[in-house]
């Protein structure tokens, strides 16, 4: 994990230096004057060799200093910290939706192989991998928000609802402050973005669960367990499901990366004030300090999630032990 993170920091470091105009532009924005550019290049030590610059950059990084946003004049780290809970909340809700529905769906599809549910889940998963997440988000917004008016489509909380933010996780905040009207309101705001973001992972999780369950169902030990008269429910739970979960966990881990990418797009559609909209605004306003910070944070989360997936293998499959 550490080598990957170091590699990442090198990539992002080079990214900023490869930008048209270089890091001075990244700091000052494109309307900076000639003198201020020279001034900042001297201050930053941009005339020094690249490896010296990198070491200093890495030092700043470890201290949590990612520079200052050109558009808000705020430290990038503070901005990222403020917006992270929104994205986390959305991603978690989407993943709960995808896993909570995808695993039972895939499992039932495999149990009733080539039945109606099986075919429905197959078609769904095909559409799921073919639909761009932002299009799906727009469709949901149109049908359930605009046409039916069932659910809110903008932001995390209605403007008439007040809520204290000790953690910035709105659902958690409303529970902590026992503010139940804010609790239902924030949940309502979560529904459409979470479904939009979770549908593609749902399709993939269902498909993998189905394939893995089919594989396991034809294993000898399942036949043996049934032959010795074990309760079918126990066979399913202890022998089938548990062994079928291994590939599912891998896919869930891989999906997290896609989920983060999808979050960038979903957040835009629903005006969700998370990291995704932050990154998109950074592109729009050429706020390179924020852009590199955002990319770094997303990649960091992705690496951590993959590490967690590797660790969870050991729990699910005692045959794998890491030294």
């Amino acid at each position, binding site marked *: 994990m550490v*080598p*990957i993170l170091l*590699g*990442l920091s090198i*990539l992002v470091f080079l*990214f900023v230096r*490869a*930008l*048209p105009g270089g890091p001075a532009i990244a700091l000052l924005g494109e309307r900076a004057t000639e003198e201020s550019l020279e001034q900042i290049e001297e201050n930053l030590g941009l005339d020094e060799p690249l490896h010296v610059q990198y070491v200093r950059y890495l030092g700043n990084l470890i201290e949590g200093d990612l520079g200052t946003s050109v558009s808000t004049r705020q430290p990038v780290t503070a901005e990222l910290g403020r917006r992270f809970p929104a994205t986390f909340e959305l991603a978690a809700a989407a993943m709960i939706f995808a896993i909570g529905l995808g695993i039972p769906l895939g499992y039932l599809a495999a149990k009733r192989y080539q039945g109606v549910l099986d075919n429905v889940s197959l078609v769904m998963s*095909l*559409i799921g*991998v*073919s*639909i*761009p*997440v*932002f*299009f799906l988000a*727009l*469709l949901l*917004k*149109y049908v359930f928000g*605009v046409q039916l008016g069932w659910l809110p489509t903008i932001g995390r909380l209605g403007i008439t609802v007040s809520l204290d933010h000790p953690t910035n996780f709105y659902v958690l905040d409303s529970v902590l402050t026992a503010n139940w009207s804010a609790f239902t309101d924030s949940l309502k705001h979560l529904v459409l973005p979470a479904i939009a973001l979770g549908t593609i992972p749902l399709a993939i999780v269902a498909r993998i669960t*189905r*394939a893995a369950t*089919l*594989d396991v169902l034809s294993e000898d030990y399942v036949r043996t367990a049934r032959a010795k008269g074990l309760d079918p429910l126990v066979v399913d739970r202890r022998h089938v499901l548990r062994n079928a979960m291994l590939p599912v966990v891998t896919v869930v881990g891989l999906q997290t*990366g*896609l989920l*983060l*990418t999808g979050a*960038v*797009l979903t957040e*835009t*559609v629903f005006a969700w004030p998370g990291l995704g909209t932050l*990154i*998109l605004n950074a*592109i*729009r306003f050429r706020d*390179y300090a924020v*852009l590199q910070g*955002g*990319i770094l944070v*997303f*990649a960091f989360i*992705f*690496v951590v999630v*993959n590490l967690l997936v590797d660790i969870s293998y050991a729990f699910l499959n005692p045959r794998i032990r890491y030294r």
Partner: protein
Amino acid sequence: MSIAEAEAAQISLERPSGLWRDALDRFRRNPGALVGVFLIVVFIIAAVFAPAIAPFDPGKQVGPLATNPQGPSEGYLLGLDEQGRDLFSRIVYGARLSLLVGLVSVLVGLAFGLILGALAGYLGGWVDFAIMRVMDLMLSIPGLLLAIGLVTILGRGLFQIMLAVGVIQIPIFARLLRGSILGQREADYVLAARSVGVPGRKILLVHILPNSIAPLIVQGTLAMATAIIEVAALSFVGLGPNDPRFPEWGNILAENANRLQESAHLVFFPGLAIVLSALGINLIGDGLREAIDPKLKS
């Protein structure tokens, strides 16, 4: 044995079968794959014969300007956009860009992935280690973000965008080919070739690569769908190809996302075009996978 079965056996004896012929037979019997071929043929025809099919010039105003243009109406199959341009014509012409981008970016990813994966798989040792760590690194950045970063550096030209979308595919191809080659490298026929003195480079190019290529063909097809969606996503975040003369589906959709309430057709139809083309490619890819390796059917 019934007469029909006897005849069938006769036919299969007469026709020499091989990996690719068998695969083609299986592919032709797969209804999903045929639907996919149909969809893609429609889009290819639209792209190639766009000037003949589209009733209007996609870049020209042909109807009234409107803040919230109305949907399909007489004379305009899918309606007009806010600048009075014909949406159907724009979507037909859009097929050109989407298919081109899908094809070229996958070729970019495939070419580099092929070289890197082959080197890693065949040479092994530190070359393998170095290449695969760089691939891991690229995979650790979510694809769209990597593409966003690359386009920010390279600029928003069509070629740069195809390059960026191609680059994010490189690690997938490289990994796949490497794995496939590792499986082939120890095969008996490679040992046989080596023992009669065939030079290493020739073993790689003539013996191992053709035997490792099947999963890449499948992945390459599926990657085209991803590439089309990826470019549309770049357009959606405002980094897509921005030449107004060449309409792009993602761009049309993105430009009109805030008119969803009043002019849903401007969002719905370009989105549908993206979904149908990606669906067609995915169906073909799945069909190829099952045709080339029937064991993989799941």
